[in-house]
């Protein structure tokens, strides 16, 4: 049975995008970052749903910026990863790397 706080694939992608973006991480930039890396269209609603889950788990924190006219007077919601979130990403990396290691079928990018 999975742990309550374990990361799903999409949640891990969102956390990695947050780390890559630094201070400029909000809905649009996060979804663009994931789209750029994965080559797939990402739904903003799914990104926010994942971010809400991650915030509840204590992996990310959010702050509202100032409202802008170009967004219909709505503020941006900026996200940043917490220390706890960073630890969880490192743990996910460790597990995935150990699982990948020593698999001849996946070496050299061949599946």
């Amino acid at each position, binding site marked *: 049975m999975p742990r309550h706080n374990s990361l799903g694939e999409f949640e891990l992608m969102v956390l990695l995008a947050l780390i890559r973006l630094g201070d400029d991480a*909000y809905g649009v930039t996060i*979804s663009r970052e994931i789209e750029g890396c994965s080559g797939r269209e990402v*739904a*903003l*609603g799914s990104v926010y*749903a994942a971010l809400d889950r991650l915030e509840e788990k204590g992996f990310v924190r959010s702050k*509202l910026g100032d409202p802008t006219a170009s967004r219909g007077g*709505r503020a941006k919601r900026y996200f940043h990863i917490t220390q706890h979130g960073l630890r969880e990403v490192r743990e996910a990396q460790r597990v995935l790397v150990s699982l990948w290691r020593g698999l001849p079928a996946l070496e050299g990018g061949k599946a």
Partner: protein
Amino acid sequence: MAAEAFGIADGNAPLAGDLLEEFQRGRSAAWYWRQTFIAIATGRCRSAWVTRRYLGAFSIGYAAQACVAFILWRNSWPPILHGIALTTLAVVMAILLLGTLSRRLWRTRDRKDPGSGLPKMESFLEFTFLAVTAFGAYLVAYCLAALLWRQSLGEWAFTESIWFWGFIVPDLTRPRRQPRRGR
């Protein structure tokens, strides 16, 4: 905007702003509507998931109330009524006090160390708090009504339903917590 019409933007204005920003940067109308409907769908699912805990708590409280009400009715209440009413009132007041204090305590500690697993404890406390409050509030009201107005069980069942749905329905439409402004 559709997100506002469905009530999603009320709790998530930044998401509505992001959709508008992307649309104004040249995304197609098809993209905009597709994204809006996904946002509405995921928003609704998320809301239902969050309120499931509250529904569970109130359902347990409601079931416990029904059992106690039946026992009181079967035992013709009067001899034991005063004792039960006073004891329940004391227990409920104590739980209300302890529950509120505990939640504040856990929240304060949770902010300091979000990785300590305390959110789970907070959820548990919140669930127990709601279940016991639902149970206790009804029981006290039930005893008082029986004492003051000598209501029958049938009459009370009607008012009980109103009370129950009066709590559940507003909770389903409860606005979500907003992040603090900063930066």
